[in-house]
């Protein structure tokens, strides 16, 4: 198990390094950053002065080594716009994004998993069809439409909750709900499918035949087995959380990373974009690492894989 963890962690760091390198090169290939960052009417001297000031006149490997050695010491470069370290943007914005993402993710699990379980247990009934109908609606509704609808109903029409901003807990409700509902639809569908598959297995029939109470069959025998595909799906959603926040944050003017990313891209603020892309990649990779670890906990076949003989 320890070897398994070490291997997975090492692989996660390697993946992050590859991703970061890929983006570093992508952002610099065949692009005159001076022209991009200033504008097309800037004079040749101004562009050259800019490139020299920020080091873009050096060769690509040089730039990469300088950036990498900086990054390893926590220095991710400086914003073209206000000269602040790019990492400051992250440390300022990330907590807000995490607050929204975690609230949305929790809501997504709290709604999605029980709804999926319920639909699977009552398979084929009106309950199942209602839940799945709602899930199909939630799944196909873009989050900005849902967000704007919720905002219209609860902020404009009923005036119960604030529409935009992030100063109080009440501000969190609508964006988190938007986030949670959209994700819950997908999780519910997944949970239902996974449960139905497991409930059809002979060992579930065997548990019923041996007289286990219905609740115990569902919760102790079926659910842990169905958890494996659902955890995969949840890990995937968790990895995308921060990236997905871009849309919801924009709709609700939530001052998180997503909003900052959009303005940084609009401003061609290279160092900031770069560090944010790295954060998004790190979240995806981190979520996958956690899923891998959870697999080991959930599935003894993986845990004992080292000593298995077929």
């Amino acid at each position, binding site marked *: 198990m320890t070897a398994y963890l070490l291997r997975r962690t090492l692989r996660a760091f390697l993946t992050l390094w590859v991703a970061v390198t890929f983006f570093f090169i992508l952002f610099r290939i065949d692009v005159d950053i001076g022209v991009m960052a200033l504008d097309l009417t800037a004079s040749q001297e101004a562009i050259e002065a800019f490139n020299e000031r920020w080091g873009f006149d050096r060769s690509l490997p040089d730039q990469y080594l300088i950036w990498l050695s900086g990054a390893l010491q926590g220095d991710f470069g400086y914003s073209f716009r206000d000269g602040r370290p790019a990492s400051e943007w992250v440390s300022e914005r990330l907590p807000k994004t995490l607050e929204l993402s975690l609230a949305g993710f929790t809501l997504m699990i709290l709604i999605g998993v029980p709804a999926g379980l319920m639909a699977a247990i009552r398979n084929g009934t009106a309950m199942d069809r209602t839940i799945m109908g709602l899930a199909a609606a939630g799944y196909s509704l873009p989050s900005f439409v849902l967000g704007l609808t919720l905002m219209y109903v609860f902020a404009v029409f009923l005036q119960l909750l604030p529409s935009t901003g992030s100063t109080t807990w009440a501000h969190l409700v609508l964006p988190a709900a938007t986030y949670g509902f959209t994700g819950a639809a997908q999780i519910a569908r997944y949970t239902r499918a996974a449960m139905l598959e497991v409930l059809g297995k002979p060992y579930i029939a065997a*548990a019923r035949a041996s007289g286990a109470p219905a609740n115990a069959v569902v919760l102790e025998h079926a659910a842990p087995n169905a958890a494996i595909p659902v955890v995969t799906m949840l890990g995937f959603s968790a990895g995308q959380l921060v990236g997905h926040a871009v849309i919801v944050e924009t709709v609700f003017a939530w001052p998180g990373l997503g909003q900052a990313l959009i303005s940084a891209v609009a401003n061609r603020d290279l160092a900031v974009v770069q560090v944010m892309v790295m954060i998004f990649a790190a979240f995806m990779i981190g979520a996958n690492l956690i899923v891998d670890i959870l697999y080991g906990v959930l599935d003894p076949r993986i845990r004992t894989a080292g000593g298995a003989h077929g």
Partner: protein
Amino acid sequence: MSLVLKADGLFRSFRRHRFLSPEEVTPAVRGVDLAVEAGECLGIVGESGCGKSTLGRLLLGLLRPDSGTVRCLDQQLNLLPLSGLRRLRSEMALVHQNPLGALDPRRPVGEQIAEPLLIHRHLGLSARADRALRLEEVLRSVALDPALAERYPHRLSGGQRQRVALARALITRPKLLVLDEPVSALDVSVQAQILSLLQTLKAESGAGLVFISHDLRVVRQLADRVAVMYRGRIVEEGTTAAVLDNPQHPYTRLLRGAVPSLVPGRRIKAEIRPPADLPDKGCAFAPRCEKVHALCRSQFPAMTLSDREHRVACFSVSKPKVAV
């Protein structure tokens, strides 16, 4: 002898609701009567899709019949309260065809085998030490090394898995055991081992066995009596020797012909596929039957009542006695 199981007039069909179109009804079991005595093994044979597995689930009360009754150990399953049914489940057990699917991949097999002892606390074996003792005993009775109890199902062989499934079924010392194709997923050599184990267990436990299989050779080894099922009905029933050596119903003869034989000229007959639609009335076998009468298409032949040893539902057998 005492009856452990008696089923009367069992019907069960499966319905599928489809949006904006007529309901699809698939009749699976269409009027089955049977009885199993303690210490006896009743073999149920028939081709796949004839309703044998549905019948097995009906007999154990895992599926509710549309009509008809099942009595197990003198208790009528559909009249029992849920708690009573659950308690009765310690007396009834099921063994599945696919031993890997029948075991939870996430738990060591010993834990799974002993679980019924925790469910049925009235047996008085739920304490840890009692469970461990009974587990070892039951593992020895199915000829498994008790050390294997720690393993997960994927680390056992097919034969070992089926022994585990048997051990789980036997741990509460049930009076009725339904074995649904227990050996058909196994290699022939392993089949033979499991069959001889089943023979021993049958003799030792005194439980009534219902052995569902499509394989006549396997049924012959284990069953005392055989019931042949075709499309949800029992068409021939009697002692194993009577039914398998002197088959009366044309369908049983067809099945017998399907068993490969070394005698030239008695090899597999050309398979006649069952027609997709069930006739509305009359004998379901009529469209495939060599000896079909006009009467067969309008009326279902009743079981001959003459002989407890051997009963047949076919006009070609019963008619000569009735007609002129």
